[in-house]
């Protein structure tokens, strides 16, 4: 518990983590509410991207917010994972900490535990802020305030947490492998925003790439939230995922598998490699 509380203290005191949380909330509100609401009131939505008012009301807040996790919230999770682990190499604090006693695996578990809690905080903050704004929209539009079921809210938060944890762990793995932040951030963002997207795009014409893209983080993350968002087919609009989709339960298993693999490989590398 001592190591976990040490890591929580570190997370709390680092301004960069709060800035990331603020960015997560601001991006969510901007892309999930501000832009769509502007499009709704000005009736300027592009074809295929017409905003339904119901998506902006409390009854639709889980579906609206869940679709942000596989995209920008996942990338923010990746940045969090890279910063938390990569900085330990850059500041040489890994060396100082390991000499104190905790043991490498215990240190890793403490850090992952703290990150898991941080991702819970981020997920709750995203949903809470989205819920508040949806109430504001309902009040402005004179619409009824009807909340989704508790089960749906929990499923949405669970899926959001799992997806963000997945990307966070990819960040952790990249930081541990590269022993720093810069390369890990570059590779992670390149992979998350470019490689998966391009390969998926070519998957429409090359069967092999289509099969490969079924294993992608984005594919499985979007597939996991698909029952919540109702988006399982191609749709237009900025940042909208065009597939392919897999069965949500399959996606759950694949994401859980990735989490185990990313954490496991990080643990093995950390345990075996010299700290120089």
């Amino acid at each position, binding site marked *: 518990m001592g190591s976990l509380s040490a890591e929580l203290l570190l997370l709390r005191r680092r301004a960069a983590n709060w800035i990331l949380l603020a960015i997560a909330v601001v991006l969510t509100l901007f892309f999930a509410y501000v832009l769509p609401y502007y499009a709704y009131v000005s009736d300027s939505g592009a074809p295929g991207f017409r905003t339904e008012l119901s998506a902006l009301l409390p009854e639709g807040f889980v579906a609206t917010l869940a679709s942000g996790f596989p995209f920008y919230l996942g990338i923010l999770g990746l940045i969090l994972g890279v910063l938390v682990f990569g900085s330990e190499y850059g*500041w040489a604090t890994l060396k100082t900490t390991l*000499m104190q006693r905790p043991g490498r695996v215990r240190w890793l578990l403490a850090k992952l535990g703290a990150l898991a809690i941080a991702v819970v905080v981020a997920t709750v903050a995203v949903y809470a802020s989205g819920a508040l704004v949806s109430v504001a929209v309902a009040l402005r539009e004179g619409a009824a305030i009807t909340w989704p079921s508790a089960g749906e809210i929990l499923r949405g938060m669970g899926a959001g947490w799992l997806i963000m944890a997945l990307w966070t762990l990819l960040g952790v793995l990249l930081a541990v492998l590269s022993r720093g932040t810069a390369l890990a951030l570059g590779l992670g963002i390149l992979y998350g925003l470019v490689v998966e997207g391009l390969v998926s795009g070519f998957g429409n014409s090359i069967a092999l790439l289509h099969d490969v893209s079924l294993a992608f983080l984005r594919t499985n993350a979007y597939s996991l939230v698909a029952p919540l968002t109702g988006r399982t087919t191609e749709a237009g609009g900025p940042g909208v995922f065009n597939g392919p989709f897999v069965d949500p339960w399959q996606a759950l298993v694949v994401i859980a598998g990735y989490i185990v693999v990313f954490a496991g490989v990080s643990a093995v590398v950390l345990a075996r490699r010299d700290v120089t």
Partner: protein
Amino acid sequence: MTTDFAIETDGLTKRYSEHILAVDGVTLRVRRGEVYGFVGPNGAGKTTTMRMLVGLIRPSAGQARVLGKPPGSPDSLARVGAMIEAPGFYPFLSGRDNLRVMARHAGVPEKRIDTILEQVGLADRASDQFGTYSMGMKQRLGLAAALLKDPELLILDEPTSGLDPEGIAEMRDFVRQLAQGERTVFLSSHLMTEVEQICDRIGIIRRGRLVAEGTLDELRGQPELHLRAKPLDRARRMVESLPYVERLIADDGKLVLTMDLKRVGELNRQLVSADVEVTELTPARTSLEEVYFDLVQAEQAGDVEGVISRG
């Protein structure tokens, strides 16, 4: 291996690649309660050896025990405090909060932190961010982290590195204080005078190999006596006849004698009674630096056996 020693290594080796052999079969013993100086030039293998002793890197061959335990094991680290190279801390945290993080990882009560901060003279700046600290303050915080566990064994790698002369003197005094009592200190440095002043025993490492080990006196050998006298020839004949003078060398207008220094008074009386005017009679000891360069020369000449046996 027994636990009579704080540190025991046998053939400890670290090879990074086919061409880079950082530590080459180092076998050393650090006794409990002593201050052991580990000296050598930059790149000699001091830091790599220390990193192996705290489990940061794994040996390629050989073995080590630290306080009777495998290096880097939680049992060993619980009783070891270490500062290896420049201290690494979180720049956004204060000195005190950095120690709080370390104390929680070490399982040490946080109430010890203020005591340690006082001890290292950092109490006044403990609330300031580490990123604002001077080099000397960073070193002090590194030392504070090493002392958190009130360790039986303190491993300090170049603790005066980057410090100004005043800081070096303060750190030297501080290490002396820490070494009082039962605590063992294993200290590395490339500053021979620093080690000379603090350490009970010394190991000299060069190119990854321990080339000598012993007390300062053992390494420096028997002290010499420098004699200037008039007339020098008469003095020389006189000294040559004395049975307790083991060795005599004429050097640049003076005589260099190797003998038991307790008999200097007797020597002086005998010279004066032989009508020799003694103008200088000074004991002179080889410095550790001179010992080091002698060893380097011997090693370069291929006299490996001579080098190792010196310790």
